[in-house]
């Protein structure tokens, strides 16, 4: 990790990356639901083509932060925010940024699988079709590629026209990942993607995450310490809307700097 360098310039963030290794940069970001604060003055950088995990107790703001990264809060009129978030150096809240295009570039997978009530094929092709007309062959190719990338192809290749709701929970979640991959995102946000799945499906999804990081920047929110330890390269610990500690995963789990982090981790790991 040559580009990594330790800095103490910003409060709470104990690692930093050089600008060309950074995919997402959050600076002084705060967010409120109505008059209830959810995130407070967060600053951190997410490295490109790595898996970054956000951990922390329920209500600490980790999901809120994740949703802020592709502006899913836009729909909620109660939400107000301050600070900046940059994707590849560009402010995502800038007026010239089309939010739909931003969300294409920053894909998101949710806690519960949410396939649309259409066929498997149509689910994967959904995002492609939004981008304009495309030759059928090309759509076929991308659908196959996306399903292969999410390790689902062999299970569904014979029933692409079947309803997506007929799949098992784990298959549905991988379908949702495939659907997101198909539109060619640069960043993939995963909001507790395995929390609704059985152990075997969970392992499959985790393996998928590890495979995807060669071509994608991944951000994973999870409750599960072992999962964070298993799949992520860097881990950020959030509490009460603040970033407490941010370090390479090995360091954070074996040798946390702060007592707050250690208490949480040991409490949860035990």
């Amino acid at each position, binding site marked *: 990790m040559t580009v990594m360098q330790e800095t103490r310039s910003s409060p709470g963030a104990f690692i930093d990356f050089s600008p060309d290794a950074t995919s997402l940069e959050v600076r002084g970001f705060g967010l409120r639901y109505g008059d209830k604060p959810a995130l407070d003055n967060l600053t951190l950088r997410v490295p490109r083509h790595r898996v970054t995990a956000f951990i922390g107790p329920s209500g600490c703001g980790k999901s809120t932060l994740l949703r802020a990264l592709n502006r899913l809060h836009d729909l909620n009129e109660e939400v107000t925010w301050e600070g900046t978030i940059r994707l590849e150096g560009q402010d995502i809240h800038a007026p010239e940024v089309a939010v739909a295009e931003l*969300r294409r570039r920053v894909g998101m997978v*949710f806690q519960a699988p949410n396939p649309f009530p259409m066929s498997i094929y149509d689910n994967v092709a959904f*995002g492609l079709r*939004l981008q304009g007309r495309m030759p059928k062959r090309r759509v076929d190719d991308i659908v196959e590629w996306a399903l292969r990338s999410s390790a689902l192809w062999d299970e569904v290749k014979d029933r692409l026209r079947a309803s997506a709701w007929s799949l098992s929970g784990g298959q549905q979640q991988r379908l949702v990942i495939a659907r997101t991959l198909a539109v060619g995102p640069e960043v993939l946000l995963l909001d507790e993607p395995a929390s609704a799945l059985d152990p075997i499906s969970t392992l499959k999804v985790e393996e998928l995450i590890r495979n995807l990081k060669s071509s994608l920047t991944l951000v994973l929110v999870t409750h599960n310490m072992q999962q964070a330890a298993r799949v992520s390269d860097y881990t950020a610990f959030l509490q009460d809307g603040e970033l407490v500690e941010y370090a390479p995963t090995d360091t954070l789990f074996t040798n946390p700097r702060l007592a707050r982090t250690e208490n949480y981790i040991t409490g949860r790991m035990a």
Partner: protein
Amino acid sequence: MRAPWRRSSTRAARGEGPWAWLAAGSVAVSLALLAVLLGLLAVRGLGYFWPAEVSLVTLDNGQQLAGRAVKEAPLPGGDARERLYRTGNRDLDGAIWTWVGLDEIREESHPSDLVVLERRRWSAFIGRLEAIETGDAGRITGEEAWGALRQRLHSLDSRWAEIESLHHRTIQPLVRRLEAGAATPEEHEALTRAQARVRELQAGMPDDTLVLKTVDGRQLREPLIEVARALRPNNMDMLEKGRVWVQGVWSFLSEGPRAANTTGGVWPAIFGTILMVVLMSIFVTPFGVLAAVYLNEVAHQGRLTRWVRIGVRNLAGVPSIVYGVFGLGVFVYGIGGHLDDWFFASSLPSPTFGTGGLLWASLTLALLTLPVVIVATEEGLARIPESQREGALALGATRLEMLTRVVLPMAMPAMLTGVILAVARAAGEVAPLMLVGVAKLAPQVPVDGEFPFLHLERKFMHLGYHIFDAAFHSGDVQAAMPLIYATALLLVLVILVLNLTAIFLRHYLRSRHGTLSKY
């Protein structure tokens, strides 16, 4: 939320006391009332078409009469009862009903040679067929006369059908164009040709005359072409009666009304009801869905929206007659009056759009049913999990794309339910229509071959209003009763089928969403 604590324990209910039984009785009574109402409509409505037996009644004083028994009632002040017979022969007796005291009846029989003739001009004739006098001075009598009559009527049927269709398809539209001064010479010629053909058909009809005799011996001569249908109900087996019954139902559904709406069919009313309801759905569906999408997906979910939502819900409870008043004041007098001033000034003072008509009626009912569609659609939209919307957005869909590709397709059954419920409500509403365009008699349906084919300004007939009109504005309610029963049954059936469809759809919708919420 259902109460899962209901146990089928019999012991616990042992000491429930009297009130519990009165409560149980109220369910039973409500069910019984509903069953009685539906049963009454079904039996009387369907029985109307059954060729019931004709009785030959001999009274103590030797008098004879023939007719169908309709009902019995006690004589005022006493134990005696009397029976009402439908004896027909209005041209001879001046009335079609005869009351007979039960104790006056010496004998009642059902001779097989009694005939019932349905005539085009007068009401039915009940009596005997003596003979047929053919045009060439021949005379057929006895049992052969009946056979000959049947045969002749059968061959006349096709001629009547051709005349009817000529009138309907060719002559009437051409005459209207002629009146409007827009007919071309070719059309003049076509009209002359059609009229000549009608004359030819009429001239070709046999000029036979039936010699008829009532049971009390009066004679009557009736031209054959006056007879629409001839039956000998006492001489028919079940199969034949069934065939006549099916024929009766069919002609009820497919023919126009006769004799001031007291007999005949209800085809124009069926057509008017359906057309009005279809137009209404065309108006109400897009606007209802639009308003629901706005309320549920776009509007700021604050106090104001909540109040607007309650307001819209409550508009469903505003009496339909109030909507009728609004339709009359705003659509008919307001908008219609202005349209007349601007575009139809030539035909004033007789109004074109400034009077009740199909367009205003369907718009009024659309307004009336708008809350139904809005509420049902909103319910459907609210049932769609937020994760579906977020999933679409996260793939880079704009809000419009999210709505049209994910949300609205999922809300489709709910919308359909709403529209069907709206249609069911609209089909049964009569009160507002009385203000904005229903007609007592409009045999011309508002759709024909004449430009612009759909005549939105015309008045139309409606099943519900037909019931009201026949029940309250016909001279002889007793004669119209069977027809009202049949019409009411038809209306109720239509509405029941629509409602059942809606219930089924809603059920389907809920069970489908059940599978989704599992994860």
